[in-house]
């Protein structure tokens, strides 16, 4: 580590001298270039909040730019403009490969954000915390920068190698995180009996974190192995394009299982993180944590089972596993809404219904995460279950391309919900207060829910309108979806611009955040 620090200092010194020689504006140089860069670097890459800010900014940039390459933006000609301006090199036969690189790039950054949150919230040895953060930061940045460069700007094979290196580093960070989270270590025993714990004092919430992290690492292999196989000959395919083929190879099943379980595990881990942030405890916590652990294990066994002779019953195992996980999330929702109401009406002797509702929605950043989990049942879980029940009767009568819209729509919706929940927590951790907190929080809720409701109706439109008559409805839905997503991105961009401008202040908000840790800010 000392070697690294010395090396970094040398680089910083060189950078500082170079920047100073550029005659930058006074406010920049007042601190001297080297110290300016070093301080910001320390905040952005050595503090939990800084690391999260960088990852969110990276995702915002990728989402903002690459969001212009499809859908209505393509129809309006924006796509062609972006491709020309950024000199992208897009070969038609390689679209599927590009898409895979794109969503792996975003997924690695999301994994990094969740990992930072875990390392900031849960107790672990400093070595592990540092090692995990360094590995995953270098990993997701390599994945994102070189993966996207490889996929969208010609094929520099060194870039492809760095993309794979990045993915590998994220994997190793995951392995280290699993070790760091080992729950039987006495240092991590739960002494407070208001939380879920075993008789020996093992923290059951930590067990749930551990199980989810372990399942994530193993499930990553279910993508890595077929990825190596198909990627070797660049015979890439998108899982949604092979859904109706009666015969699938084990590796094709592995890809399908991988993409489903990774998104589910990201969602489950985020539920645990939100629970920790909100300080989930009490009897519901004691019920929810074993349920979550059980759910993760069974769910994963079911998904891994699709690559085994258990495939015919794998879906049944998956349903059995998903139920306790979703029940645990429901218990978190019940507990957190109850707490918000109790805290908000503590000053009233007999609060009335509307006073309780007012207390519930008073702080959108604490209400938002569980509201989005509830909303998810309409946009993702509900749609998924309805499709599963009516698959042959309704959905498989339609063309495969219609079914593809439903599939891609509902996992895009789940991804968007995950993103918004992260943003609620982020809004709280950067200290948004008063009117800005309300605008930011309610903006995320309203804009994302308008967009997601639009997506859900779009997915299901064939239930109530014919192809020939759909265009006016599609237009209306597109207005709603684009308005919601567009405003959400504007909101995020505003926060990012504020964060960027803050970095140029000598005593900006970042100077406080550099010494703060998430575990100190858990809701009391």
């Amino acid at each position: 580590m000392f070697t690294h620090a010395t090396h970094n200092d040398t680089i910083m010194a060189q950078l500082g001298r170079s920047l100073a020689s550029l005659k930058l504006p006074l406010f920049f140089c007042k601190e001297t270039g080297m110290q300016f860069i070093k301080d910001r670097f320390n905040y952005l890459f050595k503090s939990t909040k800084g690391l999260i800010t960088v990852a969110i900014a990276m995702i915002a940039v990728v989402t903002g730019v690459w969001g212009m390459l499809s859908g209505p933006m393509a129809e309006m000609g924006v796509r062609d403009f972006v491709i020309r301006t950024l000199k992208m090199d897009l070969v038609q036969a390689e679209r599927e490969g590009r898409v895979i690189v794109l969503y792996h790039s975003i997924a690695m950054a999301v994994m990094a954000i969740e990992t930072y949150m875990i390392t900031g919230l849960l107790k672990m040895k400093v070595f592990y915390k540092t090692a995990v953060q360094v590995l995953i930061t270098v990993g997701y940045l390599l994945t994102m920068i070189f993966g996207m460069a490889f996929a969208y700007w010609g094929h520099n094979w060194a870039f492809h190698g760095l993309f794979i290196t990045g993915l590998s580093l994220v994997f190793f960070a995951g392995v280290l995180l699993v070790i760091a989270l080992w729950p039987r270590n006495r240092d991590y025993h739960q002494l407070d009996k208001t939380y879920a714990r075993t008789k020996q004092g093992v923290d059951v919430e930590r067990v749930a974190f551990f199980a989810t992290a372990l399942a994530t690492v193993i499930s990553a292999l279910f993508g890595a192995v077929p990825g190596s196989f198909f990627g070797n000959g660049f015979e890439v395919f998108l899982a949604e394009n092979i859904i109706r083929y009666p015969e699938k190879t084990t590796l094709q099943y592995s890809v399908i299982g991988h993409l489903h379980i990774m998104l589910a595990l990201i969602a489950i881990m985020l539920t645990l993180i939100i629970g920790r942030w909100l300080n989930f405890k009490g009897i519901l916590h004691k019920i929810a944590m074993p349920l979550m652990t059980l759910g993760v294990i069974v769910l994963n066994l079911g998904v891994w089972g699709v690559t085994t002779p258990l495939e015919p019953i794998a879906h049944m195992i998956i349903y059995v596993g998903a139920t306790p996980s979703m029940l645990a999330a429901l218990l978190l929702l019940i507990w957190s809404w109850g707490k918000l109401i109790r805290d908000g009406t503590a000053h009233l002797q007999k609060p009335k219904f509307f006073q309780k509702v007012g207390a519930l929605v008073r702080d959108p950043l604490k209400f938002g995460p569980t509201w989005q989990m509830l909303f998810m049942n309409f946009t993702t879980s509900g749609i998924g279950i309805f499709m599963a029940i009516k698959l042959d009767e309704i959905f498989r009568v339609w063309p495969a391309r219609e079914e593809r819209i439903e599939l891609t729509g509902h996992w895009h919706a789940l991804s968007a919900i995950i993103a918004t929940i992260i943003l609620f927590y982020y809004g709280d951790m950067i200290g948004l207060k008063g009117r800005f907190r309300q605008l930011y929080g309610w903006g995320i809720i309203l804009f994302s829910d308008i967009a997601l409701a639009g997506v859900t109706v779009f997915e299901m439109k064939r239930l109530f309108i014919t192809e020939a008559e759909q265009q006016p409805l599609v237009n209306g839905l597109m207005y709603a979806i684009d308005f919601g997503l567009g405003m959400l991105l504007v909101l995020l961009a505003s926060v990012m611009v504020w964060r960027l401008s803050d970095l140029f202040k000598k005593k900006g908000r970042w100077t406080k955040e550099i010494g703060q840790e998430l575990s100190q800010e858990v809701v009391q």
Partner: protein
Amino acid sequence: MKRYYLIFFLLTLLLTACTPADLNAPIPSFETGVDPDAWAQIPAGKFYYGQHDDIQTTDAYEIMVTDVTTAQYASFLNEALADGSIKAKGDQMVGYYPGDEFHGVKHEEPIEAGDWIFIPLNDPSQRIQFDGTAFTVQQGYENQPMTMVSWFGAWGYCDYNGWRLPTEMEWEKAARGTDTRPFPWGDEIKRENANFYASRDPFEDMRSFGSRTTPVGFYNGKTYDGYSTIDSASPFGLHDMAGNVWQWTGNVYEGMHYRFMRGGSKDTYDMDLRVWVRNNATPTYFSPGVGFRCARDQN
């Protein structure tokens, strides 16, 4: 009060977007000069198949230069009705299909021998009218591709004439030629190459009825009322092998009742117009975006 202006504006925008689509809006009439009765000769030999360029081989065969037109299909219906090959059954014209072998695979539905739907009648998107004795084509749609036809209806048309639906391999070879191009005309796609979603052709109005089919052979390099097209025929001279309508193909695969379609359509983005892209549906499915063409063995 000001805060309500935005909400009012957005609601107005949404409501104006929800005016019903006029399915019988006037349609431009253009003569493309491409003969829908023409056939292309495809030589025997190897070609690149699929996205990953697998090398496959076909025998020599012939395939129609254009999709089957509404006029051609109406003519078939009149002949087949007269000799009793098809009959009206409720809101459908049905015809006999000898059935498929059933394997009981998960999601597989049995396709038994019997009468199956060829086309729906009285559907607002159907451009062929039936007065109880004869079929006529709605004016302006004569040289448009036949749509609202099930796989059985496509199979029935080809079979009635002694032809067949092309296999997926035959279809792709006819579209692609013998190199690795993703589109029938080459490597890149422009709006003037084909009829796809929001391609801004003269038949489209995305504010109301959306995308509509273009006459067969429309993208042949001619200019129609100031709208210039690019000649987008395939290496073997076939038209509309990308966009306009999905085209039924003839394969019946073991363990599945779905039938496959190729080519993308007026309702899909350009990525679905790549020659290797597959779509499928139950053989009873029909849509304003699905048509077909026939193939036959070379004499």
